[in-house]
C-alpha cells in the first residue's frame, strides 16, 4: 500500500530531474507570486497580470531579435517593456484626467500590436511567441536561478515596504498627508509585479505565471482575514497546485501548464463553495451564535 502511494505521489520526482526542477520552480514562483497576487487583488488590479503578459511582448521580441534565444536578454527586454507600460500608465493617470486602468488598457494594446509587428517583421511566424515564452517542464538551471532570485528579491522588498504599501492600498489620502512617498510605493509594487510576471513567463510560460499569481490569491481570500495570512494562504495554495498539477500532468499525460492552473482553478471553486470566510457555505450555514 505504502509503495503504491509512493509510486503515485513521490516517485515521479525521485526518478526524473526535470520533474524535480519543475517542482522547485513551482515552489519558487509560488513564494513570490502569492503575496504579489494578494496585493493585486486587494488593490483591484486583478486583470493587470493578464494585460501585462501582452505588454511585455515587444520587449521579449526585441531581446530575441538582438541576441536570439537568450534567457537573460529576453527577460531583460520583457521587463523593460512591462515597466515602460506600467510606469507610463501610472504617469498618465497622475498627470491627466484618465484613470490608471484606462491608460493601462490603451498602452498594453499598443504594446501588444508593436510586439506582433516586431515578431512578424523578422519573417518568422507567430509561433515564435510559443518559443519566446517557456514551459515549466523545460526550466533549466539558468531559469531556476532567475525565478529563485526574483522571488527572493520580491520577498525582501515586500517585507521592507510592507507598511507604506498597505497604507497606500487602504488609505492613500492618509499616506499622502504623512509622507510624500505614495507614488514611489506604487511604482515599486508595479516593478515587482512586472519582475515576477516576466520571470514567470520566461521560465514557465505565460499561462503559468499569471495563473499562479491570481488564482491562489483569489482563493486565499476565503481562508484568511488579514493581509499577511492571506498572502501565506496564497503561497500554500500555489505550492499545492504546482505539486498536484505536475502529478496530474505526469500520470494523466496532460499538458503541464494547464494542469497546474486547472488544479489552482479547482482550489478556487472549492474555496468559493466551502472556504472559511465569505464562501457560499459559510454564509448559509446556520451557525451557532454566542450569547454576547
Amino acid at each position, binding site marked *: 500500500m505504502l509503495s503504491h502511494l509512493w509510486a503515485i505521489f513521490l516517485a515521479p520526482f525521485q526518478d526524473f530531474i526535470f520533474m524535480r526542477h519543475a517542482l522547485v520552480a513551482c515552489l519558487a514562483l509560488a513564494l513570490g507570486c502569492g503575496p504579489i497576487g494578494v496585493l493585486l487583488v486587494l488593490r483591484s488590479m486583478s486583470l493587470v497580470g493578464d494585460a501585462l503578459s501582452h505588454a511585455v511582448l515587444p520587449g521579449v521580441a526585441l531581446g530575441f531579435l538582438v541576441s536570439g534565444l537568450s534567457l537573460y536578454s529576453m527577460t531583460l527586454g520583457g521587463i523593460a517593456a512591462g515597466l515602460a507600460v506600467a510606469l507610463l500608465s501610472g504617469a498618465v493617470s497622475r498627470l491627466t484626467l484618465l484613470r490608471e486602468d484606462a491608460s493601462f488598457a490603451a498602452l498594453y494594446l499598443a504594446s501588444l500590436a508593436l510586439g506582433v509587428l516586431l515578431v512578424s517583421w523578422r519573417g518568422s511566424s507567430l509561433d515564435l511567441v510559443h518559443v519566446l515564452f517557456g514551459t515549466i517542464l*523545460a526550466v533549466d538551471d539558468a531559469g531556476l536561478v532567475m525565478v529563485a532570485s526574483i522571488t527572493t528579491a520580491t520577498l525582501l522588498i515586500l517585507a521592507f515596504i510592507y507598511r507604506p504599501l498597505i497604507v497606500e492600498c487602504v488609505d492613500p489620502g492618509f499616506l499622502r498627508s504623512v509622507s510624500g512617498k505614495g507614488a514611489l510605493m506604487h511604482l515599486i509594487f508595479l516593478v515587482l509585479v512586472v519582475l515576477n510576471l516576466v520571470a514567470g513567463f520566461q521560465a514557465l510560460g505565460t499561462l503559468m505565471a499569471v495563473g499562479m499569481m491570481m488564482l491562489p490569491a483569489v482563493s486565499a481570500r476565503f481562508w484568511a482575514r488579514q493581509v499577511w495570512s492571506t498572502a501565506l494562504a496564497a503561497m500554500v495554495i500555489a505550492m499545492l497546485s504546482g505539486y498536484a498539477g505536475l502529478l496530474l500532468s505526469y500520470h494523466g499525460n496532460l499538458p503541464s501548464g494547464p494542469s497546474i492552473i486547472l488544479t489552482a482553478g479547482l482550489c478556487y471553486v472549492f474555496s468559493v463553495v466551502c472556504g472559511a470566510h465569505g464562501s457560499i457555505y459559510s454564509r448559509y450555514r446556520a451557525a451557532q451564535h454566542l450569547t454576547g
Partner: protein
Amino acid sequence: MSFSPTVLTLVLALCLAGGGTATTAEKKLNVVATFSILGDLTKNVGGNRVEVTTLVGPNGDVHVYEPTPAAAEAVRSADLVVVNGLALEGWMDRLIKNSGFKGPVVVASQGVKPREMAAGELEEGAKHGPLMTDPHAWQDVGNARLYVQNIAKGLEKVDPASASVYRANAEAYTAKLGELDQWVRKEFSGIPRQQRRMITTHDAFGYFGAAYGIAIISPVGFSTESEASAGDIANLIKQIRREKVTAVFMENVSDPRLMEQVAKESGVTLGGTLYSDALSKSDGPASTYLEMFKNNVTLIAGAMWKGI
C-alpha cells in the same frame, strides 16, 4: 540655363536604348512559391527564365503563416503559383481568393502516395491521435522527383516558348536528385536496423523514415502547436534510456530548451539542427534542398553511429 540640346538627345537615346533592350529581352515569369523548399525546387527548374517569390522564407513555419499585404500583391501579379498541397498551406486558398489571382496553380505533390500521420503519435503503432494527411512529402527524395516533374509541367503550360529549357533543367536536376537518393541509402546501409531510430520534435520525417527505413519517434506535444505533458516527457526519457537511442534532434522552429532537458536527462547529446519544413538562410547549412538533405542525413547517420 537650358540644358544643352546635345545632352538631352543623348539622355533620350540612352533611355530608348534601355527600353529597347528590355523589350527585346525575354520577360521573366513571375512565380510564387509558398515556402522556401518549393522555391528552391522551382528556381532549379525554371533557371533564369523565372523570378521566384517565396512567401514563407527561410526558417519560417509554413503551417501557421499569416499572409501580409505584400504576399497578396505578389500572388496577384504572379503568372504561376506553386503550392505543396496535402493540406500543408491551410491559408493559401483564402490568400489566392483575396488576391484575385486567376491563373494556374501547380500542386507540387500531385501524384504522391500520401502517408497518414497521427496528431499524437509516440511510437509507430503505439498510440494514435486523430489521423491526418502528412504533408511533408518532400522528405522522400523520390517524391521530390515528382515535385520537379509537376513544376516543370506547370511552367511549360504557362510559358510554352521556353518548354525545352524547363525540360532540360528538370532533367538535370532530377539526375542530381537521383544521385542524392543513392548517397542517402549508402549512408544508412551500414547502420544496423535496431540503431536506425531517431527522435525529433516535429513529425515532419514520416516520409523520410518510410523511404530510408528509419523509425521516427516523435514525442507527443513537442510540436509547435500543443504543450508538453510531464507524462510524455517521462516516457520519452525512459524510452531513450531503455532503447539506447542516440539520434536526438531539435527542429528549427520549436522550443529548444525542452529538447535540451530531455537530452540531458536521458544521457544523449543533441545532434544539431535538422531542417524539415524550411531551408536555412543563405549562409546556413541548408540553404538549398540538396544542402538540406545532405545536412540532415550527415547529422542523423553520424548520431546513429555514436550508439554502435
